[in-house]
């Protein structure tokens, strides 16, 4: 879907970075291209996925939860069952292997909810790499448990105290580290945003989700699903499950963004639904920004979706109409969170709950003949404190 050599998706994507990083991006691009066609690399990665990640992940039909979705059949792609509890590990293992291939010994990563940080720290431990994770000071407080996890895994966590002290500022700080230490360090970006080749490379490491799902659905129900749904922060789990279905025109692809307190209130993180085209973190995409092009702060109950940008390929899929994007409010997400927990015995990540809330709407719209495939991107253990607070459960 990349339409040229420097990573454009239509008018989106590209590279907006200091010259200092161009060499590293070219090196990474080349390593990624070579790895794609190198059987040794592919075998090594698949073997890790089989024996470490726990792939292929299963599909669970959610029969009781389906009752809240207008009777549509609901299929959950269980990325929550991966090692470290989310889809993030797919990308992290791929990039960590590339890091070794490029002869670098240090990785840096940004994290919001802590899931990508934990996955990065995990891969670093497994492959013997030094790991530094940048995390907004606000988020280190919201996700204290994940900070401890990263430290237990041997990573250094650096709280970021500039700007809004959240994910966006953690990315800024990681970029500054990278500009300074690029000769020895790989920036292991956690989503399909950033300058080329990140959007393409991270997608390629996640497309295994859709590849597996497509085959599994054909085996399970003898046909393709009517719609595929996923939550969208930066957009990695969504593009991962969408990609195999892009050419199946009968399949609706639906991304659910974080609507926070409601898009109309301005307190949200629904970048495509409520943002405008601009440049952020090295790529042209939809951005939450003011009239002067200053980035606006995003708001979401889910730290992993709390980002004022989005991957450029989603901006493109939106513009050409191949995928649809809708906003889910904090309250709608928390209702779906609770319903899935009680009807299926699966506690989802709050990020993922946005996709589930989307299924409740889309299922009612599409009716009981339809089959919906949902990317269950992560498990909710990390969110127990936030959810308990939300529902008034004393801790």
């Amino acid at each position: 879907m990349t339409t040229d050599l420097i990573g454009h998706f239509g008018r989106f994507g590209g590279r907006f970075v200091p010259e200092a990083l161009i060499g590293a991006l070219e090196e990474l691009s080349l390593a990624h291209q070579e790895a794609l066609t190198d059987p040794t690399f592919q075998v090594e990665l698949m073997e890790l996925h089989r024996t470490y990640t726990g792939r292929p992940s299963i599909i669970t039909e959610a029969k009781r939860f389906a009752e809240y979705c207008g009777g549509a059949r609901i299929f959950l792609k269980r990325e929550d069952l991966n090692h470290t509890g989310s889809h993030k590990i797919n990308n992290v293992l791929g990039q960590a292997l590339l890091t070794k291939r490029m002869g670098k010994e240090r990785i840096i990563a940004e994290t919001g909810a802590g899931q990508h940080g934990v996955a990065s720290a995990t891969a670093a431990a497994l492959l013997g790499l030094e790991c530094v994770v940048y995390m907004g000071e606000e988020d280190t407080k919201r996700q204290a448990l994940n900070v401890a996890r990263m430290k237990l895994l041997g990573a250094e966590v650096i709280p970021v105290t500039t700007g809004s002290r959240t994910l966006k500022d953690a990315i800024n700080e990681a970029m500054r580290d990278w500009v300074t230490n690029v000769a020895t360090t790989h920036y292991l970006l956690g989503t399909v945003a950033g300058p080329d080749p990140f959007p393409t490379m991270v997608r390629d490491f996640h497309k295994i989700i859709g590849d597996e799902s497509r085959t599994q659905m054909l085996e399970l129900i003898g046909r393709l699903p009517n719609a595929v749904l996923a939550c969208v922060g930066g957009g990695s789990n969504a593009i991962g499950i969408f990609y195999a279905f892009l050419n199946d025109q009968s399949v609706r692809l639906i991304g659910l963004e974080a609507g926070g307190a409601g898009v109309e209130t301005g307190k949200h993180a629904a970048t495509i639904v409520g943002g405008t085209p601009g440049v952020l973190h090295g790529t042209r995409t939809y951005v939450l920004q003011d009239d002067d092009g200053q980035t606006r702060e995003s708001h979401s109950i889910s730290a992993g979706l709390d980002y004022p940008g989005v991957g450029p390929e989603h901006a493109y899929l939106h513009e050409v109409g191949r995928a649809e994007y809708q906003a889910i409010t904090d309250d709608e997400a928390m209702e779906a969170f609770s319903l899935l927990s009680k009807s299926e015995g699966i506690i989802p990540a709050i990020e993922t709950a946005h996709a589930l809330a989307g299924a409740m709407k889309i299922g009612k719209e599409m009716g009981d003949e339809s089959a919906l495939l949902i990317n269950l991107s992560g498990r909710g253990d990390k969110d127990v404190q936030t959810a308990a607070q939300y529902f008034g459960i004393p801790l």
Partner: protein
Amino acid sequence: MSLLEESFDLARAENRALLIGYLPAGFPTLDRSISAIKAMIEGGVDVIEVGLPYSDPVMDGPVIQRASETALNNGFTTRDVFKVVATSPVPTLVMSYWNPIERFGVEEFAQELRKVGGEGVITPDLTIEESQSWISSTDKERLHRVYVVAPSTKDSRLTEVSARCSGFIYAASLMGVTGARTDISSAAQALVERIKKVSKTPVCVGLGVSTGAQAREIAKYADGVIVGSAFIKMILESNSESEANLKVKSLATELAAAVRR
């Protein structure tokens, strides 16, 4: 010939490097940024670089980050940058990340800057591959286009980027972000020498320069010396506008003496 090009010629005739001073517009307030620039010029700065504060300055260290944040909190808007440029009696360029320019309108930005007498724009995160509309707009308004190259930039790319620069080429003295350093790395001189092999455009060195001794060293091999964070620090460390401007002026005086070979 542009005013900027005349300044380079004059400096060459006087056997010295050009001194370029950076300050963000609107820091700490719009009026004070204008008076601080005046103090810089009184102290001997030849060319002014006016920063356009941005919410996500990935090429900047803590000092410029803090100054940008202050300016934005005090209500800076893109139009203010033109007000500051308009008051400057010496050749003046704007330094801006790309998104505020794109948001303002690429052509409109170039037109406005030309109208207030700006000489050009330094764009630290705009790559030549993404520059089509920028090149046509700046050409049309006869504005200088300055890209920033780094010690890691390969020779083949230096040729490509230099070919699209005019006025001068900004050579980053080191791998890293803006902010004062105690030493200037040997990478700076090597980079300038590599650029000189592929381009006749003047080369100025910035990032990390803060003292007369450093400026003297760089003036030996570069056409210009760029100082930013050190001036901002003077303002941050002062208790009043008059104290800040005195300190800014005296730093400018020290640096201006140092760039004479």
